[in-house]
């Protein structure tokens, strides 16, 4: 019993709501929301420290004992993701103050933003499948508001598709939870994990598992359900795209990771082999998308998809090594995607267009932005010693150990193409003949957030020796779910 667990949800939710009442006092709101996120990050650091030193923190809400009430659980995986989320939120908050127009900021940007963070944190923390749906809705509701904020033509057009698709997949989620409830009689994840083994008709369960996978796959943008992502993520301003790209799809991946390492693990050869195949397609199609366009924002948005492919590859391979790779890659990708979206935002801001063919030679005027872009391209592609390399190394080692040679080869090939797609931006926009630029003085709020994230990402790579054992202990915990189950249900 620890009330600490609910704080990462409660703090942003409370202040986000409060900001509705004085949304016109922009300077105060900006400063205060940065401060709120700072407190929230400190809380997350404390939770991580507690969890890694003493074990999972559990809150049984309303005092209802574990299988009956809703529980919130901060185990190692969720506490780490909460911390990463808050670091990104902190950077995004600063970046928003420097880049967003006042109209958008005044129209409840910070409210929606903080509620989004609350929803994401809740989805990471909950130990109840129906509650996961509820937190999905909280974060989706905030994201609906954010994606349409400003109401430009393209935003309105793309947000309709985004809302419709997510609404449909949410309804599918509810249906699946209903099915699962009728088969097992519970929605508590730990108890589900326990009862799944006793169910006689495994066929029904496998169907439910695949339905659930479709739901999370839609949210997480897996092949063939990624089609909605690139355009809708490029419609809003860069800071919102960064939040979406870094956090939203990753919640889908986290849910797959949680559900398919805890509950549906009785028939790995069906479900998880299916994941590996889908991972291959996701990788290939995502990379093709990234290479197909000259729109900077679209290139970055398409690059979300192969990253998802890598993570699913790790879940599909399902050894403790490949799971560690997935977690490493998950954290790495959250950080670097946010940084890349920020940098692309600056680039578009400088050039006044997102068309790569109309850019060139910016390195002379904006050397810092150029080199940051170059570094983040290397980090993203997984060049040693950066963090992408460690994740990919673990994933590929896992894949080779489990004899998935084909997918390992596809993964390696796609890494190169990812590097090509990103470095193409660097070559075309920063090298070559100098094209006309809008004379813009870079504010510290535009440069420092991506720089900080980049430094953090480099630390993830260079400090791997120090971080890796912790990640491996998370993966061992996932590969051995009885620990989680006992932790939650020990009160009985």
């Amino acid at each position, binding site marked *: 019993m620890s009330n600490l667990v609910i704080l990462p949800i409660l703090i942003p939710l409370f202040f986000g709501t409060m900001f509705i009442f004085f949304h016109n006092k922009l300077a105060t709101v900006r400063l205060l929301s940065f401060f709120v996120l700072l407190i929230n990050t400190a809380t997350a650091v404390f939770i991580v420290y507690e969890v890694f030193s003493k074990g999972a923190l559990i809150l049984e809400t309303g005092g209802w004992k574990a299988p009956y009430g809703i529980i919130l659980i901060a185990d190692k995986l969720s506490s780490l993701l909460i911390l990463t989320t808050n670091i990104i939120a902190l950077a995004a908050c600063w970046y928003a103050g420097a880049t967003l127009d006042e109209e958008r900021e005044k129209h409840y940007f910070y409210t929606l933003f903080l509620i989004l963070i609350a929803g994401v944190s809740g989805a990471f923390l909950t130990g109840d499948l129906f509650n996961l749906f509820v937190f999905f809705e909280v974060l989706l509701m905030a994201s*609906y508001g954010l994606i349409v904020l400003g109401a430009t033509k393209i935003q309105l057009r793309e947000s309709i598709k985004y809302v419709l698709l997510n*609404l449909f997949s949410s309804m599918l989620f*509810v249906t699946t939870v*209903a099915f699962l409830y009728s088969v097992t009689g519970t929605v508590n994840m730990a108890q589900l994990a326990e009862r799944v083994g006793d169910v006689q008709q495994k066929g029904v369960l496998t169907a439910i598992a695949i339905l659930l996978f479709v739901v999370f796959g839609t949210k997480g943008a897996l092949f063939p359900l990624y089609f909605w992502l690139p355009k809708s993520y490029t419609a809003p301003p860069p800071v919102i795209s960064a939040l979406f790209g870094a956090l939203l799809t990753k919640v889908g991946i986290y849910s797959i990771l949680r559900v398919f390492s805890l509950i549906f693990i009785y028939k790995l050869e069906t479900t998880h082999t299916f994941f590996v195949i889908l991972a291959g397609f996701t990788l290939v199609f995502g990379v093709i998308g990234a290479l197909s*366009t000259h729109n900077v924002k679209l290139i970055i948005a398409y690059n979300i998809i192969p990253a998802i492919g890598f993570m699913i590859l790790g879940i599909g391979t399902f050894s403790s090594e490949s799971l560690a790779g997935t977690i490493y890659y998950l954290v790495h990708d959250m950080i670097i995607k946010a940084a890349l979206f920020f940098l692309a935002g600056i680039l578009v801001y400088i050039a006044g267009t997102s068309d790569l063919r109309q850019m060139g030679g910016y390195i002379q005027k904006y050397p810092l932005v150029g080199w940051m872009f170059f570094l983040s391209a290397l980090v993203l592609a997984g060049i040693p010693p950066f963090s992408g390399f460690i994740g990919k190394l673990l994933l590929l080692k896992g894949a080779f150990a489990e004899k998935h040679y084909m997918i390992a080869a596809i993964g390696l090939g796609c890494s190169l193409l990812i590097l090509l797609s990103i470095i193409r931006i660097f070559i075309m926009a920063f090298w070559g003949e100098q094209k006309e630029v809008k004379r813009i003085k870079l504010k510290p709020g535009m440069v420092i957030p991506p720089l900080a994230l980049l430094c953090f990402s480099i630390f993830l790579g260079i400090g791997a020796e120090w971080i890796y054992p912790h990640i491996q202990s998370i993966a061992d915990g996932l590969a051995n779910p009885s620990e989680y189950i006992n932790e939650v249900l020990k009160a009985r």
Partner: protein
Amino acid sequence: MEILMCILGGALFAAGIYLLLQRQLLRIILGTALVSHGAHLLILTMGKLNRGAPPVLNEGIQHYTDPLPQALILTSIVISFGVTSFLLVLAYRAYQKNNTDMMDQLRGTEDE
């Protein structure tokens, strides 16, 4: 009774998905409403339909109604109500701005 409810839920799903595949925005939104009704009906049915029994499990009570599906439905209804009303407003704004409510004209081009 459960079978009848399942058939009704299925019919709602089928009608909803048919509407979702239409081109006109308003029909699509009505489709999402029907699909969510189907889903809610399904939750109710999945908890087994019992009549005339208290929703508590206490000592001495053998026959009881499961209260959980109702709590789940209530949550889900509120959420889909909120999203549907948001979607209606969004569709209206999009219609005003883009001058069309046909999805095939809302596709968007490469150079924007």
